């Protein structure tokens, strides 16, 4: 399992726990941002913050399950994720590490353990066909990581992810 991907997973997953309902909140920074949680029947193709979060949750499940087909379609060709120390993980690297999760619950267990000690929330900023999904430490308002999505042909696709140095 790629460490960078694992950390990013953890950040995303931890946020799923706290965000159990759609809400609008004011972040610590004072800027209004919108947070939504995955609803039971969210349309991932919708042009909404809830859809962005739903896609992100699908992304998490796809990595956990080793669903490289779905992941390959969702990630844009130039996708890359940057971990907290600046290391780069490209689409091909992420797909390769994801494939290793097939038939294993190791990753899921790691996430389950992590989320118990890392409550968090997510926030979506939408600007036209671009969405930024950020994962926030609810205690400090600091950003752990963000995913940048682009809406194309009726689907949200990931272009870029980056972690900050914050470990939460």
């Amino acid at each position: 399992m790629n460490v960078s991907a694992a950390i990013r997973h953890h950040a995303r997953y931890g946020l799923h726990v706290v965000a159990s309902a759609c809400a609008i909140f004011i972040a610590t920074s004072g800027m209004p941002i919108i947070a939504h949680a995955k609803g039971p029947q969210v349309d991932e193709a919708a042009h909404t913050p809830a859809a962005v979060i739903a896609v992100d949750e699908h992304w998490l499940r796809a990595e956990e399950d080793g669903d490289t087909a779905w992941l390959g379609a969702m990630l844009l060709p130039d996708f890359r994720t940057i971990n907290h120390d600046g290391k780069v993980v490209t689409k091909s690297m992420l797909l390769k590490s994801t494939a290793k999760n097939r038939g294993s619950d190791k990753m899921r267990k790691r996430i389950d353990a992590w989320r118990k000690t890392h409550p968090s929330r997510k926030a979506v900023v939408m600007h036209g066909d671009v969405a930024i999904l950020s994962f926030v430490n609810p205690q400090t308002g600091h950003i752990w990581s963000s995913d940048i999505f682009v809406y194309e042909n009726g689907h949200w696709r990931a272009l870029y992810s980056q972690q900050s140095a914050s470990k939460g």
Partner: protein
Amino acid sequence: MHHEMIHRNDGPRRRLACCLVMFALGFAGLAAATGVPVHAPDRSGHADETAQTPQAVIAVDDHWSLAELRGNTAWLDALLLSDYRSIRADGSVWDKKALLARAAKNRGHGSEKLKQFDAWLKTHPMDESVIIHGNVAVLLFSDPQNGRIRGSNIFIRENGRWHALYSQQTGIKQARHEASA
């Protein structure tokens, strides 16, 4: 769909360094002098900043650095989208208002700030790479020695111009500390 990526390492870049140095200085001792006109020309080169090219993105970013150093808040205000925010290495957030307020304190100190910048940048060279996907551009700053990313800016092209939506730094505490030494 348009993808384009370039790498450039022809010398130190200003934008990220601007963040680092400004943070290091803390802004505390800066007076809000008015010696430099808000609309002072601070473009760094001759590239067409409106083009949908990596070169234009870099040109805008350079312009951004100079505008911030010189306190050109009018230009910055037009560049930054209303929901712009910058995430620092520790995850804390600067919004547009905070950035403009800090930039305003540099008015009248542009030359001084530029000198500090250039001195710092000589010992902290950075590579840049640009990914363009449609009307979205990701500008990445990396350490030329190890390729690790120090930060990134996300731009959106609207009405023929690039606008900044988001910035984020990675683990650059060491570099920031060095800048303040």
